């Protein structure tokens, strides 16, 4: 009896402590999310709002123009994500491995220097890189000229075939600090006994990394992949600040975020359409939801965890 009341009291306690977070989260995240999902089922009829069922989704996928824009944005977004997975995360792991090496001097300095771009604003990053890569006053053409490779310079941000990749790499430059820090923390948490035991068994150097450390940091890599996925499919700021809302040239850098912005808020003479905008926002939510579920149920459950 006494045990039961104690448990009850404890439960009550938990609810009180969770309440502020849940209330705030519900008010600013969950309600707007359902608001958006609801708005996507409506359409404008003159000045009033009427229920339209799935008509907006049908238009988005079946109208040749809307669907072309949507698939183009989704395709670009996938490529944006692939760049991050292939470049940002492996380099992040490599940097973390180097930083955690006890032989490296000045490692706090490198750690800070590599992490700093992450805390810069997108606007600064977009503007700075636009200047660096500018064919007129940028340092990129001059630097290439110094080593005799001026012929390799291309106005990257203005060419359809390069612009998106360039922006992807700029984003990688900005955010490489995040996987680096997470992996670095994971590497530091590996107990020395495990490493020593490995050394006793004659596993050192690269083999030690592949056979001992990498399996131990796999859960962290999984988390980073999910963070990258969510971050990339919600990306908007960098493209908007570097290329504008029309995501030129010829929509080649248009990702779901910019497509949503243009549709929802309108641009120049185009007036905003909150209903189609919400439809695109809902699709973004479903895509991210599917990706995260895939990770949670198909990948995370299979990851082996080690308890020390």
């Amino acid at each position, binding site marked *: 009896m006494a045990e039961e009341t104690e448990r009850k009291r404890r439960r009550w306690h938990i609810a009180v402590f969770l309440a502020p977070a849940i209330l705030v989260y519900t008010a600013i995240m969950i309600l707007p999310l359902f608001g958006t999902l609801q708005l996507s089922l409506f359409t404008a009829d003159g000045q009033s709002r009427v229920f339209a069922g799935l008509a907006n989704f049908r238009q988005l996928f079946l109208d040749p123009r809307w669907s072309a824009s949507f698939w183009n944005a989704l395709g670009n977004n996938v490529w944006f994500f692939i760049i991050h997975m292939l470049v940002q995360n492996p380099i992040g792991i490599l940097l973390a491995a180097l930083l955690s090496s006890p032989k490296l001097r000045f490692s706090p300095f490198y750690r800070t220097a590599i992490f700093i771009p992450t805390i810069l604003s997108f606007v600064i990053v977009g503007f700075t890189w636009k200047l660096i*890569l500018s064919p007129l*006053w940028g340092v990129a053409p001059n630097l290439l000229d110094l080593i005799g490779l001026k012929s390799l310079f291309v106005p990257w*941000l*203005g060419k359809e075939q390069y612009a998106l990749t360039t922006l992807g790499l700029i984003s990688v430059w900005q955010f490489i600090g995040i996987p680096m820090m997470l992996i670095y923390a994971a590497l530091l948490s590996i107990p020395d006994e495990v490493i020593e035991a490995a050394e006793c068994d004659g596993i050192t150097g690269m083999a030690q990394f592949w056979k001992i450390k990498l399996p131990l940091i796999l859960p962290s890599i999984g988390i980073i992949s999910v963070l990258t996925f969510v971050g990339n499919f919600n990306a908007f700021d960098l493209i908007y600040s570097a290329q504008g809302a*029309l995501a030129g*040239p010829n929509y080649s850098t248009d990702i779901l975020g910019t497509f949503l912005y243009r549709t929802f808020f*309108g641009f120049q003479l185009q007036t905003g*359409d909150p209903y189609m905008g919400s439809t695109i926002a809902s699709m973004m939510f479903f895509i991210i939801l599917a990706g995260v579920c895939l990770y949670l149920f198909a990948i995370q459950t299979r990851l082996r965890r080690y308890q020390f």
Partner: protein
Amino acid sequence: MKTQALTALLMASSILGSAGMALADTTLTIESWRNDDLSIWQEKLIPAFEAKNPGIKVVFSPSAPTEYNAALNAKLDAGSAGDLITCRPFDASLELYNKGHLADLTSLAGMENFSDVAKSAWTTDDGKASFCVPMASVIHGFIYNKEAFDKLGITPPATEAEFFAALDKIKADGTYVPMAMGTKDLWEAATMGYQNIGPTYWHGEEGRLALIKGEQKLTDAQWVEPFATLAKWKDYLGDGFEAQSYPDSQNLFTLGRAAIYPAGSWEISVFNTQAQFKMGAFPPPVKNAGDTCYISDHNDIGIGLNAKSKNADAAKTFLSWVASPEFATIYANALPGFFSLNSAAVKMEDPLAQEFVSWREKCKPTIRSTYQILSRGTPNLENETWVESANVINGTSTPEAAAKKLQEGLESWYKPAK
């Protein structure tokens, strides 16, 4: 002590309030996208108004041009927009009026100072109600570096053949980039390119109205030709023009590194303060000597009243002042290149602005083809024109393919009244 002071203050304010509005200042806020004009409003226009109208304070609060429409719509919906709204021409403002965000100003004192053409950009389709006071129009043309032209012995070209001959000569000399324009920001290609030279081909108003009526198509020869001419510009632009932004182009010209700048007259005030050399201007070249020339004289800025403004009377006083010749004179001279739409003749000091405005005498004016009615649907014709003009200059699309895409996009939603 603090409470006492506060009580005293509250009492004082309530007494002042009941004593009459004359004692309390009314503050009017102007929403605008012209952040370049901030100093002109603060130093010239607002003091001139406040000196005459004690008790009304005016605050000019601009936002970035590309964000203005979206930000304004959001503010109006939320009820937090300023009292006075700077009006984009045509549909963007008409939509605001139809939604009840802008007040009807048809009977405002001072509106009689404007012609119907001047008011056309801010009038309902049936012409019955006007909702913004016209402020200024902008004219397209080409600004050139006079020193470069003198050095190379070039005279301002009148025909297209002369225009390209001049470009060839500048290119062969190699001192200057022949033409300062980039395609990165897209709108330069459409606004300074397509809409600048286009009216010559589609014969200004004749073609524009025929397009609205459905008698002409964007795939007709007169609408494709300007694209074909634009495609030829590619060879005369600076290195890496694909990544050259609008400010880059401005700087390239004002630093004296480029000879010709496809311009809108709004550049005049900026160029006057930055360029160290003499400048001249010429209208879009005609095809054959002696042809009628056409210019884009585009109604660009008006100012309207937020229908939900709490200071409507003070705001109307301000708007009547904006409609007065006094405002027109201060504005046109403070901002050479923004030409007054007021019927009263305005004397301008700036020679470059005088050159631009003189074309109104000899050329037929029109407005940008995509602005009235044709940009109401999705896909948006104006935005598509930006993208396709840039594609044509970049060489990633042919003039015919670009025109076809625009026409298909327009046809998908626009059914001309027949």
